[in-house]
């Protein structure tokens, strides 16, 4: 946890969003997962909003391109924000 924060001190990911908060996607960190996310519409420049969290905190749902996408925190972490 500590290490993760140090690594991305100046970079926020979707994981760091608060409930209801929006962000603009800047890039996708993980090339394998990135493709799936790209296909689902998580393109650089698109707005994302953290919509809800599962009762145990993971997974989460986000809103991109007017539809709701659910993904795990590990996956959300790979979507970097501007």
């Amino acid at each position, binding site marked *: 946890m500590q290490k993760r924060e140090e690594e991305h001190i100046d970079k926020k990911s979707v994981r760091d969003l608060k409930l209801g908060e929006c962000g603009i996607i800047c890039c*996708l960190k993980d*090339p*394998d*997962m*990135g*493709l*799936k*996310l*790209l*296909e*689902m*519409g998580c*393109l*650089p420049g698109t707005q994302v909003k953290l*919509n*809800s969290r*599962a*009762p*145990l*905190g*993971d*997974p989460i*749902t986000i809103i991109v*391109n*007017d*539809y*709701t*996408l*659910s*993904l*795990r925190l590990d*996956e959300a972490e790979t979507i970097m924000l501007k």
Partner: protein
Amino acid sequence: MTVVAQPEIREASQTTPRSEVARVALVGNPNSGKTSLFNQLTGLNQKVGNFPGVTVDKKTGTCQLSANQKVQIIDLPGTYSLYPKSLDERVIIDLLYDSASAHYPDLVVVTADASNLKRNLLLFTQLADLKIPAILALNMVDVAEQEGVKIDIPALHKGLGVPVIPMNARKGIGIAALKILILQHLEPTPVQFYTIPDALKPVTETIKARFGLASDYLALHYAHQYKSLKFLSAEEAEWIGALLETHEFKSNVAQADETIARYTYINELLLDVVRVERVEKDEKFSNRLDQVLTHKVFGYLIFMGILFLVFQAIFTWASYPMDLIDQGFASLNGLIQDNFSGPLINLLTEGIIAGLGGVMVFIPQIAILFAFIAVLEETGYMARVTFMMDKIMRKFGLNGKSVVPLISGVACAVPAVMSARTIENWKDRMITIFVTPLMSCSARIPVYTVLIALVVPETYYFGFLNLQGLVLMALYLIGFLAAIFSALLLKVILKARERSYFIMEFPVYKMPRWKNVGLTIVEKVKAFVFEAGKVIVAISIILWVLASYGPGNSFEKAEQQAIVEAKQQNLSETELQNLISSHQLEASYAGVIGRTMEPAIEPLGYNWKIGIALLTSFAAREVFVGTMSTIYSIGEEENVSTIKNKLMMEKDKDGEPYFNLARSFSLMVFYLFAMQCVSTLAVVRRETKSWTWPLAQLVYMSGLAYVMAFITYQVLS
């Protein structure tokens, strides 16, 4: 709405009907209404079958286009792109990349959700670039319009270069227009949506030339996916691999670049086509519902409530039709036995019809369970359950979607294993299928209740906690723990073939489409009856033969001996008949086998009689009670108290009750763990398309049963 302008690109030879039955593939995003469209086009004329070399089932159906024109419709799994991420999606590339294949479609119909056109068009542009003739079925246009999404259909048609049919597949609007269009001779779109970058051109052009491909884009897919294209020979795949290496082809980067390029194109195209004045009413409603249904406390409570309802339904509602089916088969048997006789008739009544009855009796449970599952899926609630349970299940190597099969397993493992299909990830799905039969199913109930009644006193604690009930509950709990920990074990052993994703579209809550629910039930029941039925009938015939014949003239000797004994004991005619069948069973091949296996089961505390019951129970656990009643010469009456009394009277050589605490618990534990259900094995074989999994299950569970029963007997005696 149904009037569709023909694209200007093809004027000639439009109305010449095809001479032969053409194949149409249905492709589209998940939740784009593809299944509804498939059901509208084919109705009950559909079948599930596995195409050679493909691990997942494909649905096909026939559609009557006009009075004398039929067309084969192939329903493909929902996907977001032509780059498959799961085993399910891989079916698509198997079908679309080999034009020499017998299943290669003449035409693809791409379904797209009008309210989410941008993402839905990604798949369409990929398909169009493969240069297969296509039609865009623009679904839910009226719904999208109500939400403030206006689509300029003629402009979209012009931009895509293929016919665009606005429709509402749920209500059947636009189906007629689609049928007319399918009949016509269509050409691939002249529009190129993605231009292959110059850097990749040497690769694609070399591949295109070598395989004589129709499009550059197909060549690019060969480059990306040559490892999973089954129709390529090893030498061809190797050749592509070497080519890619010399050109430093980076599949990941190229795919990502392509996706971004396509989205850029689509964005520009849609600029003039789609106007959004979104009201955002529906989304808010879904969100508000989610706040309750996925709430920290209420979410789980509601889920538990629904589960309770499903179980009640499976146990209570199903019992009436199940009794009817049971009685129906019994009277059919009686009717045949009263009017005919001979060994063939015995085989028919005691083997085949009894076996078929054993299959048919599960139909109500399967139908009810799948009705519930279909409704939960259709409404979009299942996605929420998965979402809530994912974190817990992940710790045990399962995933959110494993919840459904595990819970269904308490009723019957057969439909439960079938419901594991919703799990896309191979490893998670295999683990789920593997551990589901450990959940104590309803067939174990007769075994548990008879044995508990023998050795557990009917004591009450606090006036309401029944000790017998507590033991029964403990047995269910042990089954659940066994499933969870077996999953954990498998998690370590199995190597993941693909990465586990949980990136999933959260569907908007919808009313279920009852036609889809009905067709799901019919499809699952049909699959069960025909696939599992074959095996169960075969096994019942074998068991019948083993129990009905003995080596040499052993049967006559057994009968004579029984008559002598009966005279000594002054038995009535029915008691004599029962004694004869009991003696004959002992003399039969099954009896011989029971005797032979006695040394192996002695450490568990069992004799040859229990051995036969164990053996016959491998077809289905319920058989235990029936076999015990035959062995203890009380005929076919499955009266629990009579069996209980008979078992109570059985004495061991020291004159003590034979079914003591140690033996009874050892048996219960054995029935808890052992894989004694041919239907389940058949279904696992069907679902995994290999014998490895059912055999591994049989060995693992039987081994576990043996060891646990051994420990139980040795500790308690």
